[in-house]
Structure formats: structure tokens, C-alpha cells
């Protein structure tokens, strides 16, 4: 047998091309845009109904989330249990998702059963009734979840940190209180539903095995004009953000074994030219397992099970954060090391060697994130939400490949000054 060289990495290739299958656009008869990714090997389909009905559109706390998750809890013809039965019977899955910017209702189905599942989804979208007793159950369960999560340092830190960086006037920073659930009424829910869940406030994204039968069925069930919203398309103006003036913040927690740490600030979303190169910088600092924060604070010091950083894009803005949970006894040491890593990245050029590693890792991650029909649909949604087209990804990949160490240093100086970062310790 030929001796093999175990010491050197085998020849490898850098990813030079990523072929994205792009979404095709069509329209239902009532002008609902339908975006289609027809791909994959399985006889399955995912249909997402996306409404501009996110948390930031609500006038009163917790209403948008209540509508989103309670939409399956009854129509004028069927009870919650009957609806659940009809969806489950044919092996379909129905999911609801609420974010600050959007509300999404998703149905997953085998193609062979889709036609049996869509009629009940049509009822749910057009005729949800939000029965009083279901509202009571919802409120009781949400309150229970709330009090349980209030016992977790990480949950408390996540909510408090948003409040600190965005300010509570903006929905992004509003820290939900237990009492908010007591004030929730059926009228609030019903009126939000009528104002936001309609054909003129909806987009549809379909992925998987999407043939003409699927599109014809969508038009049959959702293509008419009998389900517009009360008030027409919603108008929304983003309120001002109001970051706390206090840089160091602490929430005391007796008997905590670990402290949750958050450090970060508001930044910008993916429409900003610095977004892609900042993702590169973020990746090097804390965005992957081999990152500087992970290498130092977990793999060298053993202070934590995990640490990471991220740059998150939302429609009104974006934010940067570092997040970890560390033993209470090593909290101060961990903080010192975190600031040391930020200083290092702000004051020294990243080596070509490290940058090559981060670039290749990010290109690989991009390839993974475009694998399969659902992932390709997600890729489409995340540009659609910002009014961007597929050239965004060309520019993004170009930026990952070509941003220089000098440019990264400039970005770090511009955006990661220590005095601009808000710190929160819980525990």
C-alpha cells in the first residue's frame, strides 16, 4: 500500500459557484403574489402564507402573537379539536410563526393528500372565530410559560437586552409583562385578525414538488376576493429607537449558578452596504465554532459551554450581540476576555490565514443554507422581506470573497468601539 500523508490536508477546492434555484412569481386571480420553488426529490410540499401582521403592527401588547397562534382554535363551522383532527388525519403539519415584522402560517403536506387538507386551511384563514373559552385557555397557558421562562437567566437576558438597546417605545424593545396577558380580550384578537389577515395583505411561498395541480388548488381556495382586510393594506411607521444611556446593566439573581451575559448594540439590516462585510467580521469574532470568542472562552479557558456573536437583520434595523452563559465564579474573567477579543479585532489586522478560513467556512455555510427546496424558499423569503432581489446574494458572496483585512479593521473601528456597546449581566 502506498504510504499516505496524514500530516497535510488533502487538496481542496474553494467554492467558486453557488447555483440558487430562484423563485418563480405568479399571481392568484385576486392578485396575491405566489412565489414558487419547484425542487427536491420527495412528494411533499410546503405552503407558507405570509401576512404583514407582525408584533410591531399591533396597537396593544401580545395581540399579534395571540391571533397568529389561535387562528386554528375554531371557525364558525368547526371547533379547535375538529380542525386539529382534519389537519392531522392526512398527516399534514400546520405551524404558526410570529416575528416582529411578519406573521406566517405554514402547511406541510404530502402532495397526495394536499387537496384534502386545503379546504380546512381555507376556513381557518378566512373564518377564524376565536371562541372565548379558547382565549381563556390561551391566556392561562401563555402565562404559565411566561412564569417558567422568567426562571431562566437566558430568557430574561434576551428580553431585557432588547429593551436596553431598542428602548421600550419601539416594539422591538418592548419587554412583555405578565399583566399584558390579563388585558388581552377577544375583541382585540378579532379586530387585529380582521384588519391584517386578508388577501390584500398576504403573500404565498410554495416549495417542494410544486406542479400545476398545486397552483390550481391554491387559486381555487384562496384566489377570490371575499377575504380582504377591513381597513385595506396596513400602514406602519417605525417609531424612534432609544438606546439606554447606561452602559453596564445588571439584573440581580439570587442562587444563580450561571450568569447570562449579553453585550451589543443596534446596528443595521441587510440593506446596508456594510452588512455583508460585517457578517464576515462577526463570523471571525464569534460566528462559528472556531471563532475567537469560542476558541478563547470555551476551548482555552473552559468558562462556558458555549459563546457566540451575531448580526441580526430586521426590517426596521438590525443589531449586533455577544451571548453566553458562564459560571458565576468566572463571570468577571469572562467579561474581561470578551472585551479583550473585541479590542484585538479593533486594533489588529486579521491574518490572511484566518481570513481564508472564515471566508471558506462562510461559503460552505451558504451552500448548506441553499440545500433543498425549503431552504431555497427561505433564501427567497429573506430577500423578499427587504425588497431585495437575487443580485443581493451575488453581492453578498462577492463581499465574503473579497473584503480585505484593512477594510475589516476599518469596520471594527467604526462599529465596535467599547463605549458604544451595552452590557447586560443576569445572575
Amino acid at each position, binding site marked *: 500500500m502506498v504510504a499516505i500523508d496524514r500530516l497535510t490536508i488533502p487538496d481542496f477546492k474553494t467554492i467558486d459557484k453557488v447555483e440558487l434555484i430562484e423563485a418563480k412569481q405568479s399571481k392568484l386571480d385576486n392578485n396575491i403574489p405566489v412565489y414558487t420553488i419547484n425542487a427536491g426529490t420527495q412528494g411533499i410540499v410546503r405552503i407558507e402564507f405570509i401576512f404583514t401582521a407582525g408584533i410591531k403592527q399591533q396597537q396593544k401588547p401580545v395581540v399579534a402573537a395571540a391571533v397568529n397562534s389561535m387562528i386554528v382554535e375554531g371557525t364558525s363551522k368547526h371547533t379547535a379539536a375538529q380542525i386539529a383532527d382534519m389537519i392531522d388525519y392526512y398527516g399534514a403539519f400546520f405551524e404558526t410563526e410570529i416575528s416582529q415584522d411578519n406573521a406566517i402560517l405554514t402547511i406541510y403536506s404530502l402532495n397526495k393528500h394536499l387537496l384534502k387538507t386545503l379546504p380546512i386551511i381555507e376556513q381557518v384563514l378566512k373564518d377564524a372565530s376565536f371562541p372565548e373559552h379558547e382565549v381563556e385557555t390561551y391566556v392561562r397557558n401563555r402565562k404559565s410559560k411566561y412564569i*417558567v421562562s422568567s426562571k431562566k437567566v437566558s430568557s430574561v437576558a434576551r428580553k431585557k437586552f432588547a429593551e436596553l438597546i431598542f428602548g421600550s417605545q419601539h416594539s422591538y424593545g418592548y419587554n412583555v409583562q405578565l399583566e399584558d396577558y390579563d388585558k388581552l380580550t377577544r375583541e382585540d384578537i378579532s379586530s387585529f385578525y380582521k384588519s391584517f389577515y386578508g388577501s390584500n395583505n398576504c403573500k404565498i411561498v410554495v416549495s417542494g414538488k410544486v406542479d400545476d395541480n398545486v397552483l390550481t388548488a391554491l387559486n381555487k381556495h384562496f384566489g377570490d376576493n371575499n377575504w380582504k382586510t377591513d381597513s385595506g393594506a396596513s400602514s406602519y411607521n417605525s417609531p424612534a429607537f432609544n438606546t439606554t444611556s447606561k452602559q453596564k446593566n445588571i439584573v440581580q439573581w439570587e442562587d444563580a449558578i450561571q450568569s447570562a451575559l449579553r453585550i451589543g448594540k443596534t446596528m443595521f439590516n441587510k440593506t446596508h452596504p456594510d452588512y455583508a462585510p460585517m457578517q464576515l467580521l462577526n463570523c471571525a469574532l464569534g460566528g462559528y465554532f472556531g471563532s475567537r470568542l469560542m476558541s478563547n472562552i470555551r476551548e482555552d479557558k473552559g468558562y462556558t459551554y458555549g459563546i457566540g456573536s451575531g448580526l441580526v437583520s430586521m426590517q426596521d434595523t438590525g443589531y449586533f450581540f455577544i451571548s453566553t452563559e458562564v459560571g458565576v465564579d468566572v463571570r468577571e474573567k469572562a467579561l474581561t476576555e470578551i472585551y479583550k477579543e473585541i479590542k484585538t479585532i479593533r486594533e489588529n489586522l486579521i491574518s490572511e490565514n484566518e481570513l481564508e478560513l472564515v471566508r471558506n467556512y462562510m461559503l460552505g455555510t451558504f451552500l448548506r443554507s441553499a440545500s433543498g427546496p425549503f431552504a431555497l424558499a427561505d433564501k427567497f423569503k429573506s430577500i423578499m422581506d427587504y425588497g431585495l432581489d437575487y443580485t443581493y446574494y451575488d453581492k453578498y458572496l462577492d463581499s465574503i470573497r473579497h473584503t480585505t483585512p484593512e477594510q475589516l479593521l476599518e469596520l471594527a473601528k467604526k462599529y465596535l468601539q467599547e463605549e458604544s456597546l451595552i452590557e447586560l449581566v443576569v445572575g
Partner: protein
Amino acid sequence: MIKFEKFVLDNGLRVIVHQDKSSPISCINILYDVGARDEDPEKTGFAHLFEHLMFGGSVNIPNYDEPLQRVGGENNAFTTNDITNYYLTLPTANLETGFWLESDRMLSLAFSEKSLDVQRNVVIEEFKQRYLNQPYGDVWLLLKPLAYKVHPYLWSTIGKEIKHIEDARMEDVRDFFKRYYCPNNAIMVVGGNVELEEVKHLSEKWFGSIPKGPENKRNLPKEPKQMEGRTLTVERDVPLNSIYKAYHMSAKGSKEYYPVDLLSDILSRGNSSRLYNKLLKEKKLFNDINAYVTGDLDEGLFVVSGKLNEGVKMEDAEAAIDEELALVKEQLVTVDELTKVKNKVESTIEFSEMEVLNKAMELAFAELLGNAELVNKEVGKYLAVTAEDIKAEANKIFRKENSSTLYYLSKSK
């Protein structure tokens, strides 16, 4: 339907190849036939700690993660009671980097003291983060030793206590490696847009020269039949009372397993399930209620767990659970219920076959159970279950003397 090819190297390494031309990425999944059940009762948590050490450098490669990330790859691993599973995904053009990395750490680790020191701390922080500093985090640390008295499932993969992790020595690490991390104790699955001949060539090239290790005959103590119901009551700083009821049941893969798994779906899968509708919605006793099987390779547990609404008495909550369990012992589940959960299983399997990595893991696990071909027989086994099978199994399992109940109470009340 997952198509695959299989071959075995002279050193005993089993290799399964699954070609999926639609996938832009490839994966390598290596399952080692060792889990927490194989640990010394005085050195628990070791299989999992060892998993961490597998990333601490191998004999020729000082850092596992860095080269993989450099070729656009990513990896992770997990340890269960039964197995330790390592997986990576990477662009197909760079598949050989995966072979290089995985074969070197199967050949030998670097056995670095520094890595052991650091990973001991990391795992201790993991212990705190997941089991101690979370409301209800220690439930399994309490429930397992209640349900098991002899079988090693009595401890969790994280270990019985932090001290066992603190006490881990390099000598233990070396012994564990020699005994379990050898080609004849592993199953490798390569998936993606790959060719069988290429995988054969790469497997031979990188793994072929790794010497065979000892044969491990597993001889675990069998859990004696439980003769009377057990209970444990604890008070913790949590906001809501909760209850956990565990019943001994059959092993995953056995004939009896399938009706029991479907029964857990009828009781608690989704918003149309029995427990959700009766106990949470109608009787308003719980705000969270679940029934599930642990799916272990030796005899496992059927668990019913719930969080009680404020003001609900524990005895009322428990009586309501008992009533639902009595019902499935006395009456056949309906035709519609059975069709529903079978349809759900069928579509779950169809969805799980979208991802090449998922398919690779399923193949490895099926091979461990006896034959990779079992992945394609699962659906048939579920579809063959009858309402009578379910009733018969319910009668075997849901008996008071087969139960272990944990009352997990809020201290503030």
C-alpha cells in the same frame, strides 16, 4: 425509500454509501457503538466527556475543526445512552478532507492534558447550564434512578454528578479509546452526490490501515421486573407543580415497540391528541401535557409528563392521567385515530428523507440495529399495527406496579 450500498473493510469497519445527486453537499456520519450504558457506575458521564475530547486533536492533526472549516465544512456530535455519533457536512469536492480527519482520530487521539482540563470544565458548565440552572432541569437526574435500579440507564449521559466528571483521568481516556474507538466498533455512512467506487477507494486509503480493536461483548445487567409502584416527591424553586410518570416498556426495534410508539402519538401527538384535548383543553388541569417513549436500544420508558395549572390538586391531576391510561387498556382506539397516527408516521418519514445527513444517520442507526435495510421497513411495521395490538401493549405497560412517579413541587407553595 433510501437506496444504499454496503461494504466492510478487513479491519471490520462497516461502510454504507447513499447517493443523492440532488444534494450540493455531502456528509460523513460515524456511529461508534458505545454510549453512557457502557460506563463504569463510578465513572459516569464519561462517554459524553470523551465525545468532547474527540475534538481536542488527533495523532497527526492538532486541531480537528480548523481544517474542516477551511474547506467549508461543519460538524457536530452527540452522545446518548446507547451510542456516540459524529457527523460532518462539506462541499462534495472536498470530501477527502472528511476522510482524512475522521480516520486520523480513529487511528489515535493526541491525548492532550490541556484538552482534558478544558473539556472537563466545559462539560461541568454544560451540566450547570442544562441540568442545574434551568427550572425542571434535574428531572431526568431524579426520574431515571427511580425507574431503574440495576440497568445503567439509571444515570443520564451527562453523568450522575459533577464529581464523576472532575475525577476523569487521562488513563481512563486512553482505555476508553482503545476499547471502543476502533474500526470494528464503528459504522460509517457517506451520503451525497458521491460514487460508490470513489467512497470505496477513499475508505480503503484512509481507514484501511487502522488496526482492528478488541471485540466488545456487551453484558449489561438486566433490570429486574418491577414489582411495586415507586414514587418520589421533591420541592424545587419552580413556579408550577409538575408530574412525571414512567413505565417500563420494550426496546426500540422490537415487535412490541411499534404499537406502543403509536399509542404515545394517539395520547399526545399534536392538537388532536387525547391528553391535549381532554386534560388541557376540556378539564383545564394542565398547561403542558406530553406522552412519549424514550426509544432506547434496551428496554426503555414510556413517560407521561405534565405541568399543572395553578390551584389544581396533584391527586386530581394524577387521577385524570390514570383515567386516560385506563381507557386505552379497556377500549380499542378508534379506526380514525389509528389511521391518523399512521398517516402522520408516513409523512414524518417522507419529510425526514429530505436531508442527506438525516438519511445517513438513519442508515447508521438501522445498521446498528442489525441491518441498514431496516430503514425501509419502518413504515411497514407501523402500518401493520392493529388496535388490538395497542390495547394488549397498554395492558402490559400501564400497571401501577410498573410505574415510577415523580412529584415535582413548587417550593413557594
